[in-house]
């Protein structure tokens, strides 16, 4: 298992380099001139040349890219913000806990809810309960998060006054953003769990389990759910990373001082190092979530684990053969 984790970690490095390459290139091809944004239009040619040299902007593309990647991997240096002249890393790390908290809250709300609703609707297929929950899930999967956020704010904050409209200081502030961002993952999960469970319930081994007289609960949780979980875990991982991205919008609406707010203000002020740093940091987090998903596969599905151990057995056999020769 440790070898598996290590292997996955090593495989993450090229993916991260690829992400850095893409984000860097996207910003590089931007038609705007960052020097104009930093120094203003009136700056003299010498001033500009000096600033360009200071920031390394006078070097060729590949050198800039190489320096950037090298800086990230050796010093965790995401560059310096044009606006505040502080390292982007520090600014991002200041904001990150808030976004992490919001993402965790969304996950903690949506995963249990989605699983429960999905299992219940699959088990009681074609009942009234199934129809009602499935329709709510359909509506929830068809709602833009920012609109739901606005509606929740309008009803529960501005009209009823139950929850504060903006800020993120106390648990009372957490409620509306979490629900606004959680609706989409809950609905998507419910729909996926339901269809995945329905597919499994039709299998022969479920009939066998029933035939040998197992209790219904045991059949659902031990036989059906465990087999249905594999595709569901992919969906969960995907929903968590999307929730992190969706937090950008919720943070803007509820004035939450998280990474999303920083990203939007960086975009408005064309602060490229800050934009890059923010997106890369979220990409890094998403990669870690993907890693956890992969590990969860191996944990839940013995076939995946077996595949890996078999490969290991093969490898040891090969080295043994090589030694024998």
């Amino acid at each position: 298992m440790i070898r598996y984790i290590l292997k996955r970690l090593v495989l993450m490095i090229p993916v991260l380099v690829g992400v850095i390459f893409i984000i860097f290139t996207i910003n590089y091809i931007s038609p705007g001139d960052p020097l104009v944004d930093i120094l203003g239009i009136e700056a003299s040619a010498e001033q500009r040349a000096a600033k360009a040299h200071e920031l390394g902007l006078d070097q060729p593309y590949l050198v800039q890219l190489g320096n950037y990647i090298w800086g990230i991997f050796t010093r965790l240096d995401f560059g310096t913000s044009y606006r505040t002249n502080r390292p982007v890393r520090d600014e991002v790390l200041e904001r990150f806990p808030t976004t992490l908290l919001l993402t965790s809250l969304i996950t903690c709300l949506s995963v249990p809810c989605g699983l429960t609703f999905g299992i219940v609707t699959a088990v009681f297929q074609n009942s009234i309960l199934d129809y009602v929950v499935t329709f709510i899930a359909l509506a929830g999967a068809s709602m833009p998060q920012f609109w739901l956020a606005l509606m929740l704010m309008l009803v529960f904050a501005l009209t009823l006054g139950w929850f504060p409209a903006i800020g993120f200081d106390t648990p009372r502030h957490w409620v509306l953003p979490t629900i606004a961002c959680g609706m989409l993952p809950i609905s998507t999960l419910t729909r996926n769990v339901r269809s995945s469970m329905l597919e499994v319930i039709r299998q022969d081994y479920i009939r066998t389990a029933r035939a040998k007289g197992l209790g219904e609960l045991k059949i659902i949780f031990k036989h059906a759910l465990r087999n249905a979980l594999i595709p569901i875990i992919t969906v969960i991982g995907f929903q968590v990373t999307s929730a992190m991205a969706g937090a950008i919008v919720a943070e803007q609406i509820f004035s939450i001082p998280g990474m999303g707010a920083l990203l939007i203000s960086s975009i408005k002020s064309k602060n490229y190092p800050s934009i890059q740093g923010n997106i890369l940091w979220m990409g890094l987090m998403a990669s870690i979530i993907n890693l956890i998903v992969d590990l969860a596969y191996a944990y839940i599905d013995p076939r995946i684990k077996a595949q890996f151990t078999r490969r290991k057995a093969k490898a040891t056999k090969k080295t043994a053969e090589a030694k024998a020769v």
Partner: protein
Amino acid sequence: MAKDKKKNAAAQDAPVRTKKKSALSEFWRMFKKRKISVVGLVVVFILIFCAVFAEFVAPYDYAEQDLRQRFTYPCWEHPLGTDNFGRDLLSRIIFGGRVSLLVALVSICTAVLVGGSFGATAGYFGGLYESIIMRCMDAIMAVPALLYAVAISASLGTGIVSSTIAIAFGFVPTFTRVARAAVLTVREQEYIEAAKAIGASSGRIIVHHIIPNAMAPCIVQATVSLVNSILTISTLSFIGLGVQPPTPEWGSILANGREYIREFWPLATFPGVAIMICLISFNMVGDGVRDALDPRLKQ
């Protein structure tokens, strides 16, 4: 002789054509079974009709201002009320649908074409080429699509074209994966072997044999992704990166509504209802298409 050959070719063509037709009618027969999907399809057609013929459907022009009638609540004259410039909200929503649907459709088509061809060739040729393509797609997939859309529109600037590119980019890996998986299963079929045996070129095999047979999963994925791309374009416009005013777009009307949410609720409510109706019907169609095309669910 030549005539005979032609006749033969025509005779061979004929059954193929009827077979194609029967695949489509088979699809329709399966699709029809879900009444709710048919309802969704009807709504989708109505929405597309409204978007295409917005000039004739909408009661007012989307930019027509009437400053004496600012913030009118829904009434006979303005069914959904007016905004801060006295512009008719219903007309703006109808015109806004044009932008949202256009950007969503074009970006998904682009993603299907680009991702599909990468995936199909990767699955067909395999080897180093496949590894390189798939590792690139892993890198793209590592970051949520919305973030790429934000990054690209921040870099390319706002506007319909850059939003379309921005949204399409994030969807490319999805289609690459789906197309590759579909091609991998089709590639092992006997009719591909047969085509190879009679000396068909790779290009011909891909275009004539693999693509038609591997298309179903891509179509299913495309209908599902349409919902996401509509969501993405409205999100982009909402945070000010998509389509710029005065061009109406559902997301940008909502962004405007957010500023006046304390004083005037319809402006922040109705565009969202429009998005929801649109997405619910697209989702219903998507479910129907999936059930009709997914062989696993066929009895």
